[in-house]
């Protein structure tokens, strides 16, 4: 049984839970889910999802309870993680609040990219489009989404939109600037379950 924690401070938590359950059914891989609110919730976790929401709110709340530091330690120790939108910002090594602002570190700075908050603009600039992932079309929903401006060469780009990486993988870390949890396609959540499965039992063919 894979035990997956969803950072539960704020945001689209339930949508990720539903997408993970649907992916688990499709792959026939049993999972258990827990919302991560307190450091002790990280006990025995095999993978962490960092949902979309407001990254600034998550940081302020998580700092108060030591939750951010605990999640940071867990991810830095190699636990697979999947961040969408705000989650992508938190996982980035270099974050820009605006085009002209200084670069700062994300809360869990493991992915070697530079990311710009609200890169496309405000809600009226939010959009959906079809992107290509593993040669399959995927409905990508961008909501006040960030833009990945630069990607270092040990990061694998899984798909591009307008010449910018919108979903990337670096080792056990998966990051998308759009919201796969809002699409009716569990492809990317299946991919994350496979990453976790390979991390937990590298020789098990079920996760290939």
């Amino acid at each position, binding site marked *: 049984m894979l035990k997956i924690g969803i950072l*539960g401070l704020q945001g689209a938590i339930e949508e990720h839970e539903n997408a993970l359950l649907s992916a688990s059914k499709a792959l026939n891989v049993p999972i258990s889910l827990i919302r991560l*609110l307190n450091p002790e919730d990280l006990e025995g976790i095999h993978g962490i999802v960092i949902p979309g*929401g407001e990254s600034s*709110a998550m940081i302020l709340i998580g700092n108060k309870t030591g939750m951010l530091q605990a999640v940071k330690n867990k991810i830095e120790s190699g636990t697979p993680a999947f961040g969408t939108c705000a989650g992508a910002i938190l996982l980035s090594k270099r974050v820009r609040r605006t085009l002209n602002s200084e670069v700062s570190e994300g809360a869990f700075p493991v992915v070697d990219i530079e990311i710009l908050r609200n890169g496309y603009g*405000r*809600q009226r600039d939010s*959009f959906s489009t079809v992107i290509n992932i593993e040669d399959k079309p995927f409905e990508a*929903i961008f909501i006040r989404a960030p833009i990945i401006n630069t990607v270092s060469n040990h990061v694998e780009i899984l798909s591009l939109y307008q010449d910018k990486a919108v979903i990337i993988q670096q080792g056990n870390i998966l990051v998308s600037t759009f919201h796969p949890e809002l699409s009716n396609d569990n492809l990317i959540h299946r991919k994350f379950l496979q990453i976790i499965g390979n991390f937990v039992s590298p020789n098990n063919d079920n996760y290939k």
Partner: protein
Amino acid sequence: MNNSNFEPLKSYSDVEIQLGSTTLKRGFANMVKHGVVMDVTNPTQAGIAEDAGAVAVMVLDQLPADIRGRGGVARMASAEAIKEVMEVISIPVMAKCRIGHTQEAYLLQELGVDMIDESEVLTPANDASHVWKWPFTIPFVNGCRDLGEAIRRIEEGSAMIRTKGEAGTGDVSEAIRHMRLVNKGIRDVVAAKDNPEELLILARDMKVSYESALKVAELGRLPVVNFAAGGIATPADAAMMMRMKCDGVFVGSGIYKSQDPENRATAIVYATTYWNNPDKVLEAQSMVNENLAMPGLGISRMDNEDKIQHRGSNL
């Protein structure tokens, strides 16, 4: 890429992009879940809200408690005030239009706010109907007092629902009553799910379509995000509303009508996130001083005609 020259056109795989769809509008509301939206009247207050961990701010010219006290006509906030707030913070900015005032709503869309609250706190502009919200590219939030009112607003295109409560009072009892009625309505339609005759009676009682009632019955909840609003003044109030299965809370006068706005804002955010951890809610409640809370206005002795919640069309 610069925001201003962002062009909605073809791109990767020559697939066009879609703007302003229902998925995008409801999706925006999904992202503020488990969070607190705070009423603000100026950039300083907006900064305090952002630093306290608000997920969005709602810009008004005056807080609901002052609108209540002042009387006169309350309208959409001035464009300049909204713009100033949009410039200083990075979290989403919402603003209110009058009920049924389609033109104010278009002005707010043009200004670029992230969500419009068609709100009974302002003086209703049309006592017969609400704004038809589907053509807008930005999402709306609307108030409700029971399930029927919530579904009627969703049928008009609202992407998010909140309870009306009784704004500007600091008395949470009406928000609790409205949320209880929404939850009760949902239980009733769920119970009638496999019984079309009963479900039709419920739908007609609520003045909503059969399809909408069936949708709620199948989901076991509203098809959009549902927040609490109207009278929330303390961390315990916020946690109470989360306990009633709200997806998040709006706090209006409760923060800036108190004498400890910074602490109170932080504490309400904390209590909303950790509503199910009694020790954390106690910690949040201990951050505020009841003597510094907004004085408040009890609901029980208020005349019905003084209640903001009854303003606007009943259909």
